């Protein structure tokens, strides 16, 4: 059974008479500002209302990321973060009680060894992978390895995806399908792409069980809007920026991050379904 899929289903169904809702999925890169504090930050996020964690592996050439995340991963790489730090971080963050997906560019997994990465991620308690530069067409070895180790496979769809590609991606994904709200890279935007709701509907029609939306969501009202039609709301840059503020003013501890997370969580929980 899919770890993230089960969580999304449980949230959607609600519990103890409470209404169902979408999930808040929070992204942070491992190693920013350093490994220990990135683990603390991820756990803080969970404590403040994130339902599913997305831990990023810092990469030298993050072409799907905008300036905020790129700055953070460059900082992490300069600090010497390694792929093995990500696996140990997964273990510590998973203990906080939320499923942990790893967001990674594909070369890092290839270099580690696809089968070995799947084995070690599963052993660390990871839920699966989000792969921004791996489309299902190129993923046969990852599909086999993730099947063997019971890991989720989150592939992306975009506003430009054809119906055929939506169907193919929906069929290949497990856990959820990541719908990119807009054509572009990660970063905070004034509005979430107006094509996102249609993309979610089309992806569901193409066979996806769960569809979560990312790119551009940074404020509570945007989270509420997306949560009204998607199974999950993915936030990255806004949380990374909160960590950045914490880093520049250590006396505040993780308070700012907890605050931002709680606002987003309230947005998701207050969404009209």
């Amino acid at each position, binding site marked *: 059974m899919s770890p993230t899929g089960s969580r999304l289903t449980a949230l959607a169904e609600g519990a103890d008479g409470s209404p169902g809702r979408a999930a808040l999925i929070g992204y942070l890169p491992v190693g920013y500002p350093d490994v220990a504090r990135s683990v603390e930050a991820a756990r803080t996020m969970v404590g403040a209302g994130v339902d599913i964690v997305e831990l990023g592996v810092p*990469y*030298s*050439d*993050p*072409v*799907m990321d*905008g300036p905020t995340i*790129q700055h953070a991963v*460059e900082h992490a*790489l300069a600090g010497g973060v*390694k*792929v093995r730090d990500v696996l140990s971080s997964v273990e510590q963050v998973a203990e906080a009680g939320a499923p942990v997906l790893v967001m990674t*560019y*594909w*070369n*890092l*997994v*290839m*270099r*580690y060894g696809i089968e070995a990465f799947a084995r070690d991620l599963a052993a660390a308690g990871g839920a699966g992978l989000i792969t*921004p*530069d*791996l*489309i299902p*067409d*190129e993923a046969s070895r990852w599909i086999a390895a993730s099947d063997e180790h019971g890991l989720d496979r989150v*592939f*992306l*769809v*975009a*506003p*430009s*995806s*054809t119906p055929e*590609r939506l169907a193919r*991606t929906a069929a290949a994904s497990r856990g959820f399908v990541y719908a*990119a709200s807009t*054509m*572009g*890279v990660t970063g905070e935007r004034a509005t979430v792409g107006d094509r996102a709701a249609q993309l979610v509907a089309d992806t569901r029609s193409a066979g996806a069980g769960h569809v979560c939306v990312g790119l551009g969501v940074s404020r509570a009202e945007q989270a509420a809007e997306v949560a009204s039609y998607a199974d999950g709301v993915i936030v990255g840059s806004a949380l990374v920026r909160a960590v950045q503020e914490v880093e520049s003013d250590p006396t505040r501890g993780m308070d700012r991050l907890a605050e931002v997370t709680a606002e987003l969580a309230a947005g998701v929980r207050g969404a009209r379904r």
Partner: protein
Amino acid sequence: MSAPELSGGPLGTHAGPYFGQFGGRFVPEALIAALDELETEYHKALADPAFGQALARLHRTYTGRPSMLTEVPRFAEHVGGGARVFLKREDLNHTGSHKINNVLGQALLVKRMGKKRVIAETGAGQHGVATATAAALMDLECTVYMGEEDTRRQALNVARMRLLGAEVVPVAIGTRTLKDAINEALRDWVANVETTHYLLGTVTGPHPFPEMVRDFHKVIGEEAKQQLAEEVGRLPDAVAACVGGGSNAMGIFNAFLDDPQVRLFGFEAGGEGVSSGRHSARFSGGAPGVLHGALSFLLQDEDGQTLPSHSISAGLDYPSVGPEHAWLNEIGRVSYQPVTDTEAMDAFRLLCRTEGIIPAIESAHALAGALRLGAEAATWDVPDGQAPVILVNLSGRGDKDVATAARWFGLIDDETGTTSDEGVQL
């Protein structure tokens, strides 16, 4: 060198997305629709005689094709082995390099697709200049991404692009070289793919770029083959080309891939030497990996992070290489070897002084490689009474590299910017 086993169809017409295990499309889903459209439009254009005629006319009346074949006997004396050396003169093309062949082909495609804007990346500036030129010619909006470090190394080409009406964006992230310029171009493309064509400059990137760019450049080898047949009445014994991304090399190799008696050599930038760690020798110092949409050979650390590359030549300073080259290396059809900055600059000086031709520093790597071939030329099985024939692709001219070369040879004082008469005697 023994002839490799050729099976599975002609090598010269091999189509993507895969070249053996290499190639593919490792890009965000957002780009897949555009890549599919490009592939479809490209194949339609290939089947349309009007497209071929339009491109051939541009080659003839704008680029200056066919480019000349020049024998360089004084240079050949230094090669030794009794070899005759011929240069394929892509340096005489409009804009100064082979890059214009591909750019005109893609720009014609852009017009067919109805897009109004092109973006490009450039290292040395040759591809950027060629793209800005084609954009001016065909009334397209043009943005060129260039690593900040490269904008300093190639200031004159930056000015040239701006004169042609292009916007040049210096990229101040990462290593600030070609690799980072490509990252920025890809980000732009993801955001603007519906109106914009990424006019990629070499035989790498996601399918169909490696195949398409090769096809636009194969005119180099086809012409050289015919010109040599007229000059010496036979095929060359060896073909040498420099390999950064690998477009000029694929262009000249393609016509000879299925002639197993022709030895093919690709010369990478060995920088300060492969053992120094400061180089761009992917086949000597890299391993298979994914960068910029293709699985190929890549300079990377034990985690898979891209390592910085180095070369005196901005055009060869790239940590990966076209996937078809990775395949040709794997099946042993092409021999890839590193050439150091020093070897390349020695060959640069030699061509200047023996033949009155100032080559691009990229091309000087191929010339340095040719100088090595003399030692083995005597062992080649050459028709009775004939000299071994080495064909070198002179992929570009040295206009853009004069300042770099002058500094290398101590002809310009970096502090004052004045010329020095105490520099190394050429």
